[in-house]
């Protein structure tokens, strides 16, 4: 009897101890977070996941780049759009409550916050990890941590720009929540200033975390060719994860984003300071600027995305397919508005080579495969430009202008214009309204299908369409947010 009792006790004890692990099973097409984050590779996967989510059509793959946001910015004319199409409704009436428009807004909200939740899980878990878990050691750990923080800031910042009024209107009240933890089932709404300062805090911290990697061991990866096209192989890093720094939240992307945030918040000096850091960035060992303005000749050679000057981008191999329905027969089309009116120089390469005729109208061809010599385009076909260096020039220009240095400001704008084959010295600015107008025109020419023009209008508190209702600068909160 005694022996049996012992045997039973031991068996029971062993099984109880082993049970918890034994009960940890998960389906094979999904991975439990514990299992995923057991290795450094898992953090890479989770981060790639966030980028991938952001590049889908519901976010920057369409609606937040060439889709809904550009429609709101009146990049496209109403001519090609029917009233049954959500874009057709928005471009004419800004009716966000319409049953075909609402789902797009709801998806922007839900999917952005879902991506934020993904960032938060990375941020929350990575802080306690040991650097040895990562192949790239502490630098990689910090880099992933920083990128997740910066992406979280970017997503919140863009939600703020859509779902809250512009800071220039000094809005009161609380608009959107800022999520910093996963899991969390509630966060209170915060004011525009609070959100902006949280975005700034996260970006500064991210910059600090990413800096060691991008400015020391990984600096060579910021070479213009290498960032985007991975053509410039000269160092030993062959790890896929570290390649294509231009597609990721690199050090300068964070800096440029900071410039954009300060600019939106009205802190122009800080904005210009960050912008200059980006413009001046150099890789001394290759005697090259990191972000040179793309030569017009390259644009004529079908470099339609002007990849060399892109500071941050996303990737989606379906880009061309996603855009195709909008310039094919029988569908609604995205004809460019204000063409050729917005172009003041007929040799502007953006006019001649980034637009093409479709019937009697013109369309932008950034997402159209060139009919001839497509090889350059093909290598960046999947690229979705998020921030390009020209914006840094504009930020500088705006700071200078507000600071009374009008000529210097014009020079900054001209730097971009010259690179686009415009004649230097055409710009004359007298008065802030004229500056605003020139800036908006420049943005319209420069950021076609990149989702920025609307925010220029909003930031400067100018309606893109005269008949636009006042409240249309702010998206209504989606139904699935307002549950109580």
């Amino acid at each position, binding site marked *: 009897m005694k022996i*049996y009792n012992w045997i*039973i006790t031991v*068996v*029971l004890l062993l*099984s*109880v101890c082993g*049970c918890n692990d*034994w*009960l*940890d*099973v*998960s*389906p*094979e*097409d*999904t*991975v*439990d*977070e514990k299992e*995923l984050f057991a290795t450094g590779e898992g953090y890479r*996967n*989770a981060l*790639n*996941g*966030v*980028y*991938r*989510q952001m*590049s889908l059509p519901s976010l920057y793959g369409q609606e937040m780049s060439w889709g809904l946001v550009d429609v709101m910015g009146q990049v496209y004319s109403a001519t090609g759009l029917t009233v049954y199409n959500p874009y057709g409704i928005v471009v004419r009436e800004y009716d966000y409550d319409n049953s075909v428009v609402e789902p797009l807004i*709801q998806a922007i*909200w*839900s999917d952005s*916050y*879902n*991506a*934020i*939740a*993904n960032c938060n*899980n990375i941020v929350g878990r990575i802080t306690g990890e040991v650097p040895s878990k990562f192949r790239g050691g502490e630098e990689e750990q910090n880099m992933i941590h920083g990128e997740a923080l910066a992406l979280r800031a970017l997503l919140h910042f863009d939600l703020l720009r859509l779902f809250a009024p512009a800071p220039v209107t000094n809005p009161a009240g609380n608009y*959107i*929540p800022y*999520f910093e933890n*996963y*899991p*969390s*089932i*509630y*966060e209170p709404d915060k004011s525009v200033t609070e959100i902006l300062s949280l975005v700034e805090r996260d970006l500064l911290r991210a910059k600090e975390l990413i800096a060691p990697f991008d400015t020391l061991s990984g600096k060579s990866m910021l070479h213009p060719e290498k960032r985007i096209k991975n053509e410039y192989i000269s160092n030993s890093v062959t790890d*896929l*994860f570290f*390649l*294509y720094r231009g*597609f990721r939240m690199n050090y300068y992307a964070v800096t440029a984003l900071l410039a954009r945030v300060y600019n939106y918040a009205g802190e122009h000096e800080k904005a210009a300071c960050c912008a200059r850091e980006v413009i001046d960035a150099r890789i001394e060992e290759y005697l090259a600027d990191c972000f040179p303005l793309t030569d017009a000749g390259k644009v004529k050679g079908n470099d339609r995305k002007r990849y060399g000057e892109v500071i941050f981008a996303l*990737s989606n*191999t379906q880009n061309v397919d996603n855009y195709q329905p909008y310039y094919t027969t029988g569908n609604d089309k995205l004809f460019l508005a204000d063409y050729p009116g917005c172009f003041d120089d007929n040799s502007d390469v953006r006019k001649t080579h980034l637009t093409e005729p479709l019937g009697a109208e013109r369309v932008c061809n950034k997402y159209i495969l060139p009919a001839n010599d497509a090889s350059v385009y093909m290598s960046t076909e*999947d690229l979705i430009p998020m921030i390009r260096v020209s914006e840094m020039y504009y930020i500088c220009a705006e700071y200078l202008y507000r600071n009374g240095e009008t000529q210097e400001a014009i020079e900054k704008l001209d730097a971009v214009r010259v690179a686009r084959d415009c004649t230097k010295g055409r710009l004359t600015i007298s008065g802030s309204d004229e500056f605003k107008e020139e800036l908006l025109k420049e943005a319209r020419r420069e950021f076609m299908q990149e989702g920025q023009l609307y925010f220029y209008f909003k930031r400067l508190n100018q309606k893109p369409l005269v008949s636009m209702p006042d409240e249309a600068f702010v998206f209504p909160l989606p139904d*699935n*947010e307002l*549950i*109580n």
Partner: protein
Amino acid sequence: MKKKWNFLRKIVLLQLNFSVGRTGFLLLLILFTAIQAKAWSQSRITVGMQGATIDEVIKEVRETSGYRFLYRVEEVNRFGKRDIDVRDAEVSDFLEQLLRNTDLTYEVENEVIIIRPGQKKAMPQVKVLVVSGKVTDEKNMALPGATVLLKGTSYGVVTDANGKFRMEVPEKDSVMLLVSFVGMETQQVFAGKGQTEILVSLNPDVKEMQEVVVTGYGNVRKTSFTGNSVTVSKEELMAVSKSNVIKALQTFDPSFRIQTNNDWGSDPNALPEMYVRGRSGIGGVKELDRDPLTKSALKDNPNLPTFIMDGFQISVEQLYDMDPNRIESITILKDAAATALYGSRAANGVVVITTVAPKPGKLNVSYNFTGDVTIPDLSDYNLMNASEKLETEVAAGVYKDLAERSATNPLAAEQEYYAKLASITRGVDTYWLSKPLQTSFNHKHSLNIDGGSDNFRFGIQLNYNNEDGVMKESFRNRAGAGVYLDYRIGSFQLKNMVTYTNTRSQESPYGSFSDYTSVQPYDPYKDDNGNYLERLPAWDGRTSNRKNPLYESTLANYDKAKYEEFINNLGINWNIVTGLLWKTQFSLTRKVSENERFLDPLSAKNAEPQSAGHPSSGELHTNKGSEFYWDLSSTLSYNRSIEKHHINVLAGVNARSVKTKNLSAFYRGFPSGALNSPNYAEEIVEKPVSSDNSTRLIGFLGTLNYSYNDIYLMDASVRMDGSSEFGSDKRFAPFWSLGAGINIHNYGFMKGLALLDLLKVRASYGETGKVNFPPYVARTIYQMFTDGWYKTGFGGTLKALGNSRLTWETTNTWDAGVELSLWKRLLYMKATWYQKKTVDLVNSVTIPSSTGFTTYMDNIGEVENKGYELEFRSEVVKRKDLFVALFANLAHNKNKILKISESLKAYNDRVKDHFANSNRFDGSNTKPFTQYVEGGSLTSIWGVPSLGIDPATGNEIFVRPDGSITSAWNTGDQVVLGDSEPKVQGTFGVNATWKNLSLYMTFMYEAGGQIYNSTLVDKVEDVNVYTSNVDKRVLTERWKNPGDKARYRKLVSGVGGSIMRTRPTSRFVEDNNVLTLNSVSLGYDFDAGQKWMKTIGLSLLRFEIGANDLCHWSSVKVERGLNYPYARSFNFSLKAAF
């Protein structure tokens, strides 16, 4: 006189003592009849028998006369058989003749006749042999109180406390002893010359199953068990249904119910959904999201009981496809005291199935055949024939409306009418309903071979069952084989059972039955050559796209499935010491399934039918699945009686692992119906999808059953369950139960009462659980991108907001009952009251989407089921040749939602939106959908209260919640109009045997529930007379002119297609009272031992005829079996053993 009585009583008491079990004792059999005052002198005797022993003659005589006889059976039987024939003789004459040629004398004292050996002759010729031995049970434990009888006599002894016996028998070449014990099979043993020490091991008798409750982990004596259970034996099950075990179970427990499936009727491929004691959960797929093509929602079903076969869990499908002949008994465990051992799987009740084990002895072959004729039951359909239909069209104004519409050709309407009339005159009157149907003949064979010695037994089972449905070419065929080995050595027993099942099934290529109920009866269905028409005639000369539903059946469409299953169940039992048993069982199940659905390129059902612009058509969906389960349980039990204490303790561990894999693919574009292999496919439409799932469960359990003096009873169980499906913060969950009871009939003072056999009062309380949510909701899980990498590598994102605090749903059950049996089971009654409260219902909670998600799962919600059950049995006549028993049962259950979550309110809003959207041409807004509200039930019928049709306008008048009246149907005005759960439901029936004939008949009833009569909506009120066939009631009670008091709105012709949709209204909620003649079976047993049977070696032969679902009476006239009709089945079966 008085002295004699005392003497008799003493003997009776002695007898009682034997059965209670004392030392060995020479049993003197006393035969006496019931007290009948008959004058001694006046009784005369008439008896005529041939080849009877003296004992048999006396038995016959005492039946008819009032005499008592006192004699030793073996003494009188020494003198062999004799013929006797006396008529109206004096008793002395009769005795003289009876005892002729013997040395017996008799003596008459008052009414008692004592027969004893005569004094003059000694009997040296009868030598006495002393036989002794020991009787044990199958676990080699001594059986005190077992009876050992000399075969053919009433002479015998009982065993002592050590199971030993000793008896004197007349010395012959061989002596046959019969050894019996309550609950054990009676065994015959030879006690030949020189073999005087005999060891007998008895096996449990399955016929005595009522005496123990099978909990799946062990057996508990029924008398001392305080849980609530219902046990059904194989014979009872088979008497109700020979093919559908699950359906038959309903008869025996009024709380066990199969969900009515009005859509799929008698489809052999529609697996039943069932519940015990009401529905307890909300999860799973709700009405609004249900795919109309799925026949049952068994995955994550919150109401499904757990099925345990021979100790391991099986699926509904496994039980559904099992050969009923393999079943030994089924026990339904209902309350917490009975189910707590199953912990997190127990809340919905547990059904325990035991299968037949081989019996030792010479090779025993038994064969069972059941033939089954299944006939479609169309009695609920009340559709028009061709001429009626055309008349109705005229009456409804179809041709008037047509004439008005076609101004360019005023004669078109008339042409159309006469074309139809000509068709009818030609004799076209197509009875579409019968076209896709058939009367099927199904046969079932089951062969069982077993035998072996006590130490080594084997059994082989083979079965084949073809089940053709009443829709042509739909079937479900099962074939199976099993091998059972049982090896015993010393105190060890090793057994292994291997079974293999192969099931193939096919859906009818004729499509849905509902396609045939709307077609026009004046439409011909075949051409002059007898081929099915591809298109039905265009009566109006324009509409060319009228498809003939029969045409699809000529194409190569198919939808078929098959699975193969292999189960190995290994068990080891070790009797460590008396009463201490170690039992370990390990079962493995491997199942491979496959199904394929193919649409011919010519089929109109293709998403994009073949056309000039779309030349490639035809679809093939394939799905391959494999499942692997293992289940291990190991228990140690101790069972002992110490004086008046009876203890049964068990402790053990149980682990289970389930792994399923699925791969599905979708191909499109086939050259022809015959070339349907994936190789011919033009494209793979979607990347083949693979899914994997794995769950694990481990439980530690313990149970105690204690009784004192068989009067005071107590049960306690506890189980600690760990499940991979729980959240990571709460990996282990405790479940427990307590029960108490009193056997009042065992009190000393009650024992004197002859009328009372049983009076037991019991009550139990416990907490059990259930898990029915997808495994990922409890944890944070990443979904990896399998369809493409990101530029910088492989990635994944969060699949859902995991809730690591998520726990099982807990059900708290109170159960109390009383059981009463009077006058030797002349009347048996059992009454139970219960209250089941399910708390922590797992439900999705709506959260702001800024969390990144819209819902997460949490334990919110409470549902209560309260009710009572009554069971009644009466053995009305219990005579040698005639036995009649009546039985009836009744259950009442009231379901109430106590608490719901926000997400269910959101679901209610979705239901409201569904109705608000008027553009639903699929008719889905004419059916009511249940909404969930606190205080409501899970089976409520929702709709808007109606005052009926306004005689003035012909519009329906609705009552708004504020009492005001409106003619508009508002989705927000919906309230509960009724409840589809009946107030009472149950079964009643009769079981009778007369000589060799036996009859078993059961009725099922339900009353007090409601039903939404959708036939009145779809086939009477909303009907489009122009385009489809209609119910015969279509013209009656219609509103026509102002002032008409009518039940239905004005009939519109349907020309132009504007048919108003009647959304759920109280007008069509009807009380649903149903009575079904569930089963009838009549059997005949051939007397064993007849000469002709012996010649061909038959030891048993039984014929039976029966019928299922023969009649159905309902207070509501509604079409039943919409996609697949109901059927009646008649069967005959034959059972033979060699």
